[in-house]
């Protein structure tokens, strides 16, 4: 089985700013991997680099074995990737349902969740489907941002800070959602500031600092790595 995501010697720039330095990471099919690190460590930039949303990129990014490091952004989604950005990016000129239906299927054969399944998983979104996208609450917009990539058939999900700024009860719901998706075989790369949210969900952890990977370990080693994490993250 091909590795879902394989990044080798990735460097990335925003204009003149050199943000990522020789990043190497890999994610197997069905794994949940978390990128930890302080603000400004380069975690969001890593996700954006995978989607081709940064400036110049060097190095290799392979999605399901296909080299995507030189592809234009609109072709990367069709490799089966769904991207949920930190700012959620709900469109204000569209209704909630239009937002949900906007992303096209990633391929002709991809089996995404049906709209009914999504509304069953997120009943709030069904209720608010006719509302203008940005009139939804923060929690609802976050659910919508994840829900719309589930419809496309993407199996590799890039989730950037989905628990940020949300009430604990919503964060719990998101945690349950990730567990369900994991059970269904989705591959998930999560950028998370909220350690309590990420720790029980992830199979493996990478820690970033100054645009580089400085630590990586499996969930089993979490206990023994806590002192290191305390130093790196101020957890």
């Amino acid at each position, binding site marked *: 089985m091909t590795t879902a995501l394989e990044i080798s010697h990735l460097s990335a720039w925003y204009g003149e700013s050199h943000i990522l330095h020789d990043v190497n990471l890999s994610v197997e099919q069905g794994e949940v991997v978390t990128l930890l690190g302080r603000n400004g460590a380069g975690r969001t930039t890593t996700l954006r680099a995978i989607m081709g949303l940064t400036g110049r990129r060097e190095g290799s990014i392979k999605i399901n074995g296909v080299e995507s490091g030189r592809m234009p952004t609109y072709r990367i989604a069709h490799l089966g990737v769904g991207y949920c950005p930190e700012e959620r990016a709900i469109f204000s*000129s569209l209704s909630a349902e*239009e937002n949900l239906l906007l992303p096209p299927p990633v391929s002709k054969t991809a089996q995404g969740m049906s709209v009914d399944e999504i509304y069953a998983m997120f009943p709030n979104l069904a209720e608010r489907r006719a509302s203008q996208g940005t009139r939804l609450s923060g929690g609802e917009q976050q659910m919508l941002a994840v829900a719309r990539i589930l419809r496309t058939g993407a199996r590799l999900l890039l989730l950037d800070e989905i628990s940020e700024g949300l009430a604990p009860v919503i964060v719990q719901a998101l945690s349950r959602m990730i567990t369900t998706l994991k059970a269904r075989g989705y591959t998930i790369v999560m950028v998370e500031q909220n350690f309590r949210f990420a720790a029980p969900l992830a199979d493996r952890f990478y820690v970033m600092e100054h645009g580089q990977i400085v630590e990586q370990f499996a969930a089993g080693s979490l206990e023994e790595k806590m002192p290191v994490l305390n130093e790196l993250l101020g957890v």
Partner: protein
Amino acid sequence: MEIFGIPTSALLGQLLLGLVNGSFYAMLSLGLAVIFGLLNVINFAHGALYMMGAFLAWMGLNYFGVNYWVMLIVAPLLVGLFGIVIEKTMLRWLYRLDHLYGLLLTFGITLMLEGVFRSFYGVSGLPYSVPSQLAGATDLGFMLLPNYRAWVVVASLTVCLMTWFVIEKTRLGAYLRAGTENPKMVEAFGVNVPLMVTLTYGFGVALAGFAGVLAAPILQVSPLMGSNLIITVFAVVVIGGMGSILGSIVTGLGLGVIEGLTRVFYPELSATVVFIIMAIVLLIRPAGLFGREK
């Protein structure tokens, strides 16, 4: 019968003329607004491409014997294609820059187009006759309705409303609206946004070309017909604001009517009334009557 000292038939006649002008304002400002929304380019060439539509209709008839009805379809397609070429070869390099560069480039294109047509055809207008099916007028009792002008209003409104429907009510329109708001995100979903941008420019200028064909039997087909119109159309876009498609249509028609009525009651003001309104709107509601603050 008289209203405010003006005979009713004269008033209604001017109202119709106002609606006709308003239809052109609506179609042209619609194209401009859609292009500005997605491309961030102020398409000064809109007037010249409208002129090109009229000239293509004239050339079709006089060089190839192709009638008005065929040119009504063919001319916008040709103008749209020409627009696609402009976008792919020149405009796309400017999107990251200030609006000013798009304006300058399209201004330059305007000068080139007008210069070329002027050197071949001079500045005095070329005649284009009303198609026989629409010649003459219908007696409505309270006024005599010139058939062709009624057709212009109906055709323009139909095209504008169809455009509104596609943009506001269909999936394709959703891509356009979302792309106007956050093109990178729409691309991240796998939509070929660069292609959408090219086709949107082509469509916007095709609307201008369509307006040109409609205008040919009414005005003289002249290389300057675009510049006479484009400044007023810019004012219309500023007044209506960029936010709403329906807003562009309503504003265009409304201002055409206001201009027409001003011509009846106070003709000296008719050339400037739109700009006076624009100044007032800018002071009270800078985003335009229907605009959304970006």
